[in-house]
């Protein structure tokens, strides 16, 4: 958060770390860009949590490894289905990253991959919570990866997911138009049923809301969620909004900030990572970081209401994807 990148185009790509620090040279050569990014994020997480072999691995992605899929597809079309090699076909498989991490860590345990558009990461997180409810001492590695593939930009422009006009990412929320900006990223978390010395925060609960029909239904879903978890509105120190800068798609979140969450300080994150199916995982990393570090970088803050926090104990994440996939994640210190 110290070095924020400003982008002038509508595509935000990952800031690439030194892969060599995380991946062996032999493996590095054989991996595509997004597999490198995903495996690096997973390795960072394993090191941070001080876990060598997780008990299970669950990954999430909206479009998988679309660059590799496209490479195989265009080769197939250009060569009229002749003389094809399987490399891109294999690397484009949705569960390739989960399999790769299992291989790298020699993890023989639970392994799953969700590809449910704007619910993929939430499904993965939900799955982890189910696994831990059956075995609370386990450590599960759960993470996301989605790439800003060029072909997805074309799809997104045709489907009107992205803005027509260019907008600097740091001005995303000033925009009064539809569409958003394309992003990408990979985030991994070690989730365990019991706290330890390396714990960042607790995930109290998670709920998905599919295609809410109107503001009343959505607000009610949130208040019921808080009620079930016995959380009063005044207890929420900060809420993380998954607003995407799309004036139409953000309307339920805008309504929330004017009603139920009017008194609650708000932060946003999609101006930093762009929009992608599993962007909520970046939001979770932000929420967990805030609870761990007990500070909120200014770049995330939405001006009103004022931030006057002494102690941050409860964080609520509210995400939306394409105004169809909504989710609440409740975090506690």
């Amino acid at each position, binding site marked *: 958060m110290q070095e924020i990148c400003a982008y002038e185009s509508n595509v935000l790509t990952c800031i690439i770390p030194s892969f060599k620090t995380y991946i062996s040279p032999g493996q590095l050569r054989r991996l595509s860009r997004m597999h490198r990014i995903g495996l690096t994020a997973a390795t960072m997480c394993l090191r941070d949590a001080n876990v060598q072999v997780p008990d299970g691995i669950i990954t999430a992605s909206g479009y998988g490894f679309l660059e590799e899929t496209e490479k195989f597809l265009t080769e197939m*079309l250009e060569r009229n*289905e002749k003389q094809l090699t399987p490399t891109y076909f*294999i690397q484009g498989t949705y569960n390739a990253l989960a399999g790769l991490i299992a291989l790298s860590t020699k993890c*023989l345990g*639970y392994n799953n991959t969700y590809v449910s558009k704007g619910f993929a990461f939430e499904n993965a997180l939900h799955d982890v919570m189910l696994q831990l409810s059956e075995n609370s001492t386990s450590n599960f590695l759960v993470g996301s990866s989605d790439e800003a593939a060029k072909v997805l930009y074309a799809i997104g422009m045709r489907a009107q997911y992205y803005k027509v006009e260019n907008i600097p990412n740091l001005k995303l929320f000033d925009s009064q138009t539809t569409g958003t900006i394309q992003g990408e990223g990979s985030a991994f978390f070690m989730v365990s049923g019991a706290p330890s010395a390396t714990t960042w925060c607790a995930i109290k609960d998670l709920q998905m809301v599919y295609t809410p029909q109107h503001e009343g239904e959505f607000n009610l879903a949130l208040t019921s969620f808080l009620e079930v978890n016995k959380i009063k509105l005044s207890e929420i120190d900060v809420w993380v909004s998954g607003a995407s800068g799309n004036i139409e798609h953000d309307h339920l979140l805008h309504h929330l900030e004017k009603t139920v969450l009017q008194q609650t300080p708000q932060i946003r994150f999609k101006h930093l990572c762009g929009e992608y199916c599993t962007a909520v995982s970046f939001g979770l990393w932000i929420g967990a970081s805030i609870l761990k570090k007990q500070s909120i970088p200014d770049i995330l803050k939405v001006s009103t209401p004022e931030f006057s926090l002494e102690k941050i104990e409860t964080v609520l994440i509210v995400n939306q994807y394409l105004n169809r996939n909504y989710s609440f994640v409740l975090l506690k210190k």
Partner: protein
Amino acid sequence: MSQRVFITGYGIITSIGKNTQENFQSLTLRRCGFGELSILDTIHQKDLPACEIKLHDQELREAAGIKTEKGYTRTALLGLLALQEAIHSAGLSLTDIRNSGLISATTTGGIREFEKFFYQITDLQQQGDFDQFTDTANPGEHCERIADHVGIRQCIATVSTACSSSANAIMQGAQLIKAKKIDRVICGGAEALSKFTVNGFNSLMIVDPEHCRPFDNTRKGLNLGEGAAYLVLESEALVNQKRRKPLAELKGYGNANDSFHLTASSPEGTGAFNAMNLALSVAGFSAADVDYINAHGTATENNDLSEGMGIQRLFREQVPYFSSTKPYTGHTLAAAGSIEAVFCMMALQHQIIWPNLNFSSQMQEITISPVREMMQNTVLKNILSNSFGFGGNTSSLLFSLV
């Protein structure tokens, strides 16, 4: 704390039938879907025969009752037909449906349409009817579309763990019910043949141009197939409220990773062994309780060796009857787990073991061999169904007679 999980209905469409009854008949009459491709437009129509559903998209649309709505891919259409039959078979009302979840599995979603219109879709200057398939490279698209079509709102998820996908969808549904997160989840998978899959598997050199021979010493690879199947999973509490007797109970499930190679299983069958063993332990069963295994049995050299070794290691001297139904339907990839789960339901209901077609010579590396003729005079109480995939994913489900 936890509660039991029952199956109260199912629906299926494969190359051997567009509903439960047709599939049952074909299985009984040893009728297979294997043959030259005529619906999928590929240069491999003749040299790589597969198990294709001989219905054009327009016929599928009519069967599903779709009139003018656009954007339904073949995967979504197959899924919708199986889903509609599952809903009907479980006798669900509109309210029941609204309060249900849908967990669907696919390995390619609508790539069939995406590959067909790729150059048009990605050229923003072009306009046309292809527009309806713009976002079909997304694997979760089919799930939301068919959920929207029937009105499912509670819980939506798409799983993709290669060829074990729909087994994991069923397992996840069972765990949601067990943990009392939801009372009813419809789980399964849908997979249409595409040039992408045909060429992908061909480039891996694991497709047999002849009819596949699972667990046979001369096996040369798999035949691809297409289809969809969904099972209605309901909680004990919900079943108790109803007057209908459930069809079966999902007693156990296991998910493990072989962690050997991205596109190959370990020769000693570590993942297969672990998945089956986990399913037994969740059910509280010993190996001797299993009456039949519907094997993954793709007829690739690698899978059948690994699976055979895993079965032998787990069951030792008491290996139950086992067979692969892949020669009937081909390998339907993400849909295989749920299609074979439906075959297991039929096996339990009718007390029949489906034969492993095309077996004639014993594999050298193992001593066990599959069931060759249909068996009707055996007692079937507990069935294991295996699904394994690339990425090391191995899953096993355990169904029991109620």
